[in-house]
């Protein structure tokens, strides 16, 4: 399984020289299964360059949306496979009792916000709510669980014979909870993340910033580390970098995070756009 970061930034893209090391595109992570199935986690602005890299391939593409906040869907209409006749793309997202996923996305992908409507897409595009239990995409097994954020938001775990990756980009498990002491089954997302080989987790705020943003749906560093420690992941990547943090600030945050993480087991780093991770031999 190959994992590549195409967008690591939260909230809004931050192009410019101050974000070249950690990246300025909003969330998009590519997971390539061993059989070639492409799983795309979120459709932030990073999906544009990923889409260009996928043009001409005929493997099925599955876009897994964690939720429908703009920074996670704003790249959808710039995803090249949508415009390839004959391409097959399935978009998965959180379930709703009132509106289909397609109808919810169409609020953004329609006039006056978009020049192109979903029905105009040349590719065969399906929109599906995630199922209640695990399901298979190629040789990947996928599980989705609702997690603590503002509005219905999913976390995903993708497992193959090579290993597993858990993706929780927008997550505030510490809201109203003592992450160090709460029983594991009562911590948002923990059952999904436990023991994965690679954990990609919200680490948007410095602790001082989080104090003023409790309830916004993201984690401060202390909570991100506490969650990661209980998840016992092989590697942890802090993700959804705050748009107010330039490379220098993120480097300082990463150094602080690593110093505090030292001795807890496993590796810890900030996710970087363009970074790649290979689990297993493929």
């Amino acid at each position: 399984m190959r994992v590549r970061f195409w967008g690591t930034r939260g909230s809004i893209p931050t192009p410019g020289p101050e974000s070249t090391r950690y990246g300025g595109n909003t969330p998009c992570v590519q997971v390539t299964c061993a059989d070639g199935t492409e799983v795309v986690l979120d459709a932030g602005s990073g999906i544009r360059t990923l889409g260009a890299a996928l043009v001409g391939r005929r493997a099925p593409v599955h876009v897994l949306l964690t939720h429908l906040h703009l920074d996670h869907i704003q790249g959808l209409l710039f995803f090249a496979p949508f415009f390839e006749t004959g391409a097959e793309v399935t978009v998965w997202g959180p379930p709703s009792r009132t509106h289909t996923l397609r109808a919810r996305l169409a609020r953004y992908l329609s006039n006056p916000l978009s020049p192109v409507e979903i029905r105009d897409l040349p590719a065969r595009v399906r929109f599906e709510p995630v199922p209640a239990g695990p399901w298979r995409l190629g040789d990947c097994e996928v599980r989705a669980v609702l997690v603590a954020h503002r509005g219905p938001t999913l976390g995903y775990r993708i497992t193959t014979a090579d290993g597993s990756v858990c993706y929780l980009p927008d997550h505030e498990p510490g809201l109203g909870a003592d992450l160090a002491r709460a029983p594991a089954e009562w911590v948002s997302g923990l059952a999904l993340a436990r023991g994965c080989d690679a954990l990609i987790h919200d680490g948007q705020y410095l602790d001082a910033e989080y104090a003023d943003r409790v309830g916004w749906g993201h984690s401060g560093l202390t909570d991100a580390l506490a969650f990661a420690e209980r998840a016992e992941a092989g590697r942890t990547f802090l993700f959804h970098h705050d748009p107010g943090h330039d490379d220098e600030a993120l480097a300082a945050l990463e150094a602080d995070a690593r110093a505090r993480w030292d001795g807890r087991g496993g590796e810890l780093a900030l996710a970087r756009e363009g970074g790649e991770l290979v689990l297993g031999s493929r």
Partner: protein
Amino acid sequence: MADDGQPLELILARNLISTIAVPAVLVDADRRFVFFNDAAAGVIGAPFEEIGVLEPDEWNAKYGPLDPDGNPMPEEDLPLSIAVREARPAYGRFSVRAEHGVIEIEMGAVPLTGAEGYHGAILVFWPVPEAG
């Protein structure tokens, strides 16, 4: 979708009731009493950490509910049963065994129904003041 973790609806409900001062109990989809807060502990006389998760029969044997004559109440008349059966908040008044004997309480039950269906309920209760 929760695998061996609790559904998010229950997790958030537990986080909420653990921070409020109104007596409240959390029930899962199997009617197990999976958490109660400190305010509820103040009424029934023991903290959740001491009592732990109780099956419906265990809870009923320990605390009731009881009718005015002290007999167990039919389950179908309880706010929780109504809330689940009719998918709406429900209200009831009955007696329970508390720390200092049988007391009368009022209870509201709110079903926790998410996109995937019913996950449990929050039961909020308060002792009925004795007539002066």
